[in-house]
């Protein structure tokens, strides 16, 4: 037979269903967020690792300007320390989408689709391998070109041959950047189809797998040896990439997201703890008299503490019943969505038992630990004090400087305003400062996170803007080879709408270190430096930007100096260009991405030392209008004109598209952050509701007094609703301030994870005002139910409250 005290615990749990629901929901939100994060991290990390292992990823990829054949591939395969190698043909073509829009498309040609050894591509649906004169599209790219299997696409190769090809199926190629992120779709054809396009047989892309691919330094050296062999064999390498061991292309971004999820999970857990303290305080206030009675009839502190701890354990257990299954479903949905977004397969959505153990431990232990604080302070009170009639409405208002500030003479300016009931709400807010502090901490954290999410969004946009503003043009055309700069500029100016042009030259280089080892590929950009240049200086971190009379000056990304400790500002660096070593002086560093280092040098100097004087392989065009539709139309006219003049364009990038694609790539991060922010706001709202409920309870006698002196239902309710709004506004103000360092921290973490540099800090005013509206609505909602309860109390009920 159950002991009497446990009947009380059970009856308290199920007797006040609203209170139990409020507490259980509050705990569930934190535990749910924790479950999602822990499980999604595991599912995604395992999925990523398995997807990666399944494709037999290369240690490095290099592209040659000239075509090579199987014999050369075999010679690479037979090299010492090369575990395996594979070759493809890669072509930058143009495709007309079903909506009539022309886009860049990267087409791969594979000799034998059933024997891809490195960076494997597999069938997703439809035909496999691609039939002759048909194409497979990477599965993530179908949406980018608004197409589906069976559609016919018009594809234009760099040799100006246009063919209509049917999409015969979709392929899965996780080694590529997801198409929706860089905006470039990927297609797969056979060499027969390539011939149909009028292109000769041959490979231009070599994938190398080192013998010990997990050793990054070793893999780099093996790839460099293959590069040397390739160059000695007479091939030029305009582009090469060394892979990070064990990582897919979007690993950094995904890790950034997981990191953010982890940070927000910890934050939501903190909020839940505050909420537990807050709600348990509310519960104890509500039960203060009963605690006094239990002490009066002989209950010891330990016995009473035991009863309430069991109650909190029961709340935790009920919260776990909700949070665990929802967390599992949420984690699976989130993992699937992120896997689709980052284009990799999840092989298992099994949730590890450790996740449940952590959730159960936190769900049961943390609330108990958190509630010990209010328990101890409550149980230390004497039984007489606990049962005192006057205690419930005593309050401690009036003694300290805050109370003095919001009362009496300091508010002389309000004397003639009919806002006395507002003042009552303001002063009531400060009566129980301990509870106000807890509520404010919960709501302020929620506010700060919400505002910070918008700040991160704004900072991402600012970062994109910062990068794009270096290019003071509307469109950039990459040409298939170098042309006479004055000719392409002159022809471009003949197109209506074009107002200004500029050229640059770009080439791959490698850093030669003092021990003769070489770095991975570094892209060298050589823009023209003069007053009308369309490339303006990137954001300089240290030193200066290039000047017109600079010779061998170079500006490098600041992160590059951290990766290469021998280099320093003002020092020299040796770069290998066209197989020859040339010394450059580092005159400045700029804030830029680390994973693809770009080194800026002067166009005049580079064209001289590489015997390309007066030549260019990239053209920037500025137009008289900058709206996307106009820029697209003018760009098409420009492409058509160049085609007629025999200038082949291999890639077109409009600044508008670059901006949209860059911002779109961050949408997943922002959406995820927003979901977490809403969860945190919910936790904050629940906390406020708990506080307002207890305020109503504590002031039951005062409500009686208000009603006795003629206050209407509306007036009584408004006192509490206004109090809720005052707390909400305070949290908004404090949240706005806390959001400054919080968003800086998020920017730092996200920027480092995704781009290797912190994001350009930006404070989102729309986010601030939006949260103001949300927090006011939340405050009104959270205080409405307690306020309605208060307004419904009759004087008789109030007097009977004792």
């Amino acid at each position, binding site marked *: *037979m*159950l*002991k*009497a*005290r446990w*009947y*009380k615990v059970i*009856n*308290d749990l199920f*007797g006040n269903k609203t209170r139990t629901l409020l507490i259980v929901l509050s705990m569930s939100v934190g535990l749910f967020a924790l479950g999602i994060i822990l499980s999604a991290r595991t599912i995604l990390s395992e999925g990523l690792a398995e997807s990666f292992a399944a494709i037999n990823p290369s240690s490095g990829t290099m592209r040659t300007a000239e075509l090579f054949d199987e014999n050369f591939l075999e010679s690479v395969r037979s090299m010492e320390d090369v575990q395996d190698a594979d070759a493809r043909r890669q072509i930058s073509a143009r495709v007309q989408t079903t909506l009539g829009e022309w886009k860049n498309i990267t087409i791969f040609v594979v000799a034998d689709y059933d024997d891809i050894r490195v960076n494997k591509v597999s069938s997703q649906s439809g035909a496999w391998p691609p039939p002759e004169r048909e194409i497979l599209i990477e599965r993530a790219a179908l949406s980018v070109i608004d197409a589906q299997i069976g559609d016919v696409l018009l594809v234009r190769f760099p040799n100006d041959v246009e063919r209509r090809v049917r999409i015969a199926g979709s392929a899965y190629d996780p080694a590529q950047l997801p198409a929706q992120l860089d905006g470039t779709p990927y297609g797969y054809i056979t060499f027969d189809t390539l011939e149909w396009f009028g292109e000769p047989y041959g490979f231009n892309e070599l994938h190398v797998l080192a013998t010990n691919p997990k050793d990054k330094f070793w893999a780099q050296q093996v790839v460099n040896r293959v590069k040397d062999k390739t160059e000695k064999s007479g091939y030029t390498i305009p582009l090469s990439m060394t892979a990070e061991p064990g990582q897919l292309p979007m690993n950094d971004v995904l890790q950034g997201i997981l990191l953010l999820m982890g940070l927000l999970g910890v934050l939501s857990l903190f909020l839940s703890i505050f909420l537990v303290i807050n709600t348990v305080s509310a519960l104890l206030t509500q039960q203060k*008299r*009963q605690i*006094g*009675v*239990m*002490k*009066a*009839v*002989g*209950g*010891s*502190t*330990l*016995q009473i503490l035991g009863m309430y701890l069991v109650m909190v354990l029961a709340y935790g257990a009920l919260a776990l019943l909700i949070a665990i299954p929802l967390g599992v479903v949420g984690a699976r949905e989130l993992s699937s969505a992120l896997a689709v977004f980052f284009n990799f397969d999840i092989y298992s959505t099994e949730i590890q038992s450790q996740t449940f153990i952590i959730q159960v431990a936190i769900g049961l232990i943390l609330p108990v630990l958190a509630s010990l604080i209010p328990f101890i302070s409550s149980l230390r009170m*004497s*039984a*007489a*004090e606990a*049962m005192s009639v006057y205690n419930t409405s005593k309050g*401690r208002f*009036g*003694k300290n400087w805050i109370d003095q500030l919001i009362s009496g003479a300091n508010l002389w300016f309000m004397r003639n305003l009919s806002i006395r009931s507002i003042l009552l709400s303001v002063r009531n807010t400060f009566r129980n400062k301990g509870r106000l502090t807890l509520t404010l901490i919960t709501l302020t954290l929620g506010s700060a996170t919400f505002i910070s999410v918008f700040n991160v969004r704004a900072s991402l946009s600012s970062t994109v803007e910062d990068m794009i503003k270096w290019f003071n043009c509307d469109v950039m055309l990459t040409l298939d080879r170098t042309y006479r700069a004055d000719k392409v500029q002159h022809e471009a100016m003949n197109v209506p709408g074009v107002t200004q042009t500029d050229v640059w030259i770009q080439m791959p280089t490698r850093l030669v270190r003092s021990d003769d080892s070489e770095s991975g590929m570094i892209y060298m950009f050589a823009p023209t430096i003069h007053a009308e240049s369309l490339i303006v200086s990137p954001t300089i971190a240290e030193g200066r930007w290039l000047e017109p009379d600079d010779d061998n000056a170079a500006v490098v990304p600041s992160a590059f100096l951290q990766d290469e400790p021998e280099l320093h500002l003002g020092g020299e660096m040796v770069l290998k260009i066209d197989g020859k070593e040339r010394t450059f002086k580092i005159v400045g560093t700029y804030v830029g991405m680390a994973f693809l280092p770009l080194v800026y040098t002067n166009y005049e100097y580079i064209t001289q030392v590489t015997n390309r004087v007066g030549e260019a392989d990239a053209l920037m065009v500025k137009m008289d209008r900058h709206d996307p539709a106009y820029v697209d139309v003018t760009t098409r006219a420009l492409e058509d004109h160049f085609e007629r003049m025999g200038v082949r364009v291999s890639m077109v990038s409009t600044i508008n598209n670059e901006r949209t694609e860059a911002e779109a790539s961050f949408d997943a991060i922002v959406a995820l952050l927003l979901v977490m922010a809403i969860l945190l706001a919910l936790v904050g709202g629940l906390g406020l509701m708990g506080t307002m409920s207890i305020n109503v309870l504590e002031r039951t006698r005062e409500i009686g007094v208000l009603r006795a002196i003629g206050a209407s239902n509306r007036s009584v309710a408004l006192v509490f609703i206004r109090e809720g709004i005052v707390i909400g506004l305070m949290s908004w103000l404090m949240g706005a301030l806390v959001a400054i360092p919080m968003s800086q921290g998020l920017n730092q973490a996200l920027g480092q994870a995704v781009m290797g540099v912190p994001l350009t800090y930006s404070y989102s005013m729309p986010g601030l005002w939006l949260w103001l509206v949300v927090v006011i609505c939340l405050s009104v909602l959270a205080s409405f139910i307690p306020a309605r309860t208060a307004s419904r109390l009759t004087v008789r009920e109030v007097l009977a409250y*004792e």
Partner: protein
Amino acid sequence: MNSSTANPLIELRAVVKVYNSLAGSVTALNEINLKIAQGEFLVVTGRSGSGKTTLVNVITGLDRATSGEIWIDGAPLHRFGSEKAAKLRGKTMGVVFQSFELLPTLTVLQNVMLPMDFARRFSAWEQRKRALNLLEQVDIAEHAKKLPAALSGGQQQRLAIARAMANDPAILVADEPTGSLDSATATAVIDIFEGLVQQGRTVFMVTHDKDIAKRGSRTITLSDGEIVQAKENIHA
């Protein structure tokens, strides 16, 4: 003025209780000396604010005296912390309040069983049996499964008395037990107290009702925290 008894069950020596509040210090009990013998029915009267409830609180250990000594059945309550005081209360004293102070989420039966549970004196089955017996003694056994809110004021006070008697205490302390009751019900409650006294228990009751005060074996009157009058009542 002091009262004295030969073998006191309760003894107060120079008990002082001072409350400190925002308004300043208030002396609620000032040098109280009091002896209560076993089987005595002591009634404390006085006007509102005279210190009656404070006296109940310090005698029961619900609150600590600022100074002085309180001896309960030979135990120095003034030296006890709240834990030890609770245990002493559970074993030696039953307390009845003016506003009943029943636990609203426990049934009538469970309210009576709760002190026994805290005192760990009986098995759960015995607790139940004993509680039913006590409810029968105060004539509310038929309401055992109801919640307190379903009882009338008089029934709630009977329930509070049954609860106070749960651990068979030697002392019953009642603070204005008839304050919320009509006169007929109040009389019935006092009848119960008299019955307990006849069984050898000691009753310490606070009231401001002069007629009810006369039913005690001794009456003391408090004013401004001091005993101003002590009177033996002679019953026919």
